[in-house]
């Protein structure tokens, strides 16, 4: 109506907090074989538990696109009210997401984007490219004045598009200050993999100025390798933002000086959004009376100066 104030559109935060019709939400993600993904899973579960009116169904985590499709198909069959999907590969899950949407089930796409805009009602993403850019900028700030600085990079699983995005952002940002990555290895997001990759990298490069490690979980291993090699001539930056990494940054007694956040709360956000959408509610602080289609989360840099501010966002690695 005309007399309604612009700011009063949609549901209010009180209305949102109140219990509505119980909704069943299906959640499917990759195998929780990694701290961040573990945090994603437990985040989703915790979010669901915090709502009395959400019944969360969790499919077996899998890195096999086909198996994940089967999980989504099962959700469709079971007639869930919404699906939160963190695809093992965005493009590969697009078909089945479209199928769900066509069956009238809203799909909330988390972290790895589908290849079609019709596949999701809402998309919530971490910013992988932005993560690389943040990391690159930070390293430019720290060592940019040295044109010969040796910058090393320990990536995650190289065959994942998200790794490519991070590395691209990192390279682009470094190019701004005329630096480039002179040594790069890929690990596998695991502690042991990080340790192995790092010890090889350190051995091959006797002098490093800055090192970006994509992931704090494998960072545990990377740090172990650095300590055991007794190296401290460089600064290191992490990624994702684990509690362990933040503790170390706070203590400021190792090479790890910063990390870039890649929120592990995305799936929890997804569950919250799915509930709103399924119950016909909206995001109370936004004026527009419907849940946005696309939310890209921030990738802030955490240093010892601002670590307290981000500490609660950290995940238990």
């Amino acid at each position, binding site marked *: 109506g005309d007399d309604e104030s612009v700011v009063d559109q949609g549901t209010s935060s009180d209305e949102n907090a109140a219990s509505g019709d119980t909704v069943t939400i299906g959640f499917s993600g990759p195998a929780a074989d990694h701290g961040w993904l573990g945090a994603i899973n437990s985040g989703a579960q915790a979010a669901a538990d915090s709502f009395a009116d959400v019944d969360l169904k969790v499919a077996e*985590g899998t890195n096999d*696109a086909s198996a994940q499709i089967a*999980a989504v*198909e*099962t959700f469709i069959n079971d007639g869930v009210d919404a699906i939160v999907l963190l695809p093992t590969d965005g493009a590969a899950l697009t078909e089945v997401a479209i199928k769900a949407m066509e069956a009238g089930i809203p799909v909330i796409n988390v972290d790895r984007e589908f290849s079609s805009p019709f596949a999701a009602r809402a998309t919530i993403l971490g910013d992988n490219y932005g993560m690389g850019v943040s990391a690159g900028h930070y390293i430019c700030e720290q060592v940019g004045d040295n044109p010969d600085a040796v910058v090393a990079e320990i990536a995650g699983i190289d*065959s994942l598009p998200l790794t490519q995005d991070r590395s691209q952002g990192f390279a682009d940002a470094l190019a701004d200050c005329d630096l480039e990555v002179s040594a790069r290895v890929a690990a596998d997001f695991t502690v042991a993999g990080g340790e192995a990759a790092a010890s090889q990298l350190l051995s091959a490069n006797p002098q490093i100025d800055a090192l970006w490690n994509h992931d704090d979980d494998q960072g545990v291993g990377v740090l172990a390798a650095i300590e055991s090699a007794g190296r401290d001539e460089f600064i290191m930056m992490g990624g994702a933002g684990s509690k362990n990494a933040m503790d170390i940054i706070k203590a400021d007694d190792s090479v790890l000086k910063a990390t870039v956040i890649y929120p592990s709360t995305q799936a929890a956000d997804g569950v919250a959004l799915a509930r709103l959408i399924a119950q016909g509610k909206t995001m109370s602080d936004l004026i527009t009376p419907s849940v946005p289609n696309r939310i890209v989360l921030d990738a802030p840099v955490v240093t010892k100066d601002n670590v307290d501010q981000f500490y609660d966002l950290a995940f238990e690695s």
Partner: protein
Amino acid sequence: MSEQTTPGGAVAAPTPPPTPTEPTPAKESGIRRLLSGSVGRNLGLVVALLLIVAVGAITSPDNFATWSNTLVILRQASIVGVISIGMTFVIISGGIDLSVGSVMGLASVVATIDVAQDLASATHWTVMVLFALLVGVAAGLINGIVIAYGNVVAFMATLAMLVSARGLAEIVAERRTLIVGDRGFVGFFREDFLGVDVLIWIFILVAAAGWILLNRTTFGRRTVAIGGNREASRLAGINVKRHTVWLYVLAGLCAGIAGVMILGRTTAGTSTHGQLLELDAIAAVVVGGTLLIGGRGTIVGTVLGVLIFQTLTNVFVQNNLDSSVQAVAKGVIIVVAVLLQQRFAKPAGRSS
């Protein structure tokens, strides 16, 4: 031929022996033979499958025993199923193929590179299928030649192919996920026939072809003979090396078909397709009663093995089981399934 060698005059005893020398246990033999044959072996599997289905139907009465859920299970089973059919032949012959998962990934990638997609859009989408199948056959050919003529043990040769094919797929795809553009292709796999998806039909066809190939052709006979006794087969004049090459080509071809199927299912080719699929396939084949040392195995058993694993996963999802608990349960169930299968297959002959 030797028709002139009739049992004529020269034979020793004028009076043939009154009883056969072999003590034939007359009675039970009928049922026993049935039980100990492939039927009995598979009976154990059917029981295992029915148990799982029963658990599913009881714990999730509304959603499990529906036609659409059955289709979900079958669709999921179809890809690993096709791979398992090829694997069955290789394992019956006494070999193993660890590379099928990677080869499937490579096939999916090669079929969706720009060249292939451009060609496909200029002509027909079956060009993409052709690319995938060629990749499978080529990989199988290399495996087969290295194993048969290079005398490299199959485990190592195909492990090497696993690693290489995965790397090659990453290089070819430039680590991107390649999206299938051709709507004809995507449309074809979205269709169904008599209410059953194209994917499932492909599995049915491959399984049927595999059954005929194994049980009704000289190819199958050679496969079983080589697996049963390689040296005897060689001395009987079978070209064991050449046949071995064909076996790995067959496994590669199946991986290629699976590559097409995963493309149809996901509409995207990536080097991550098929990771660890080889273990699923081997597990299905072995649970299906095929001996890892070769010489014995059935297609029906393999199909049942595949269905058991997929149904199990489905029951888990239906019951919203934590994935870690699922893993523990799965391990226990594998052992129980093998024990069950043995129990039913046991009556026959000598155990080792």
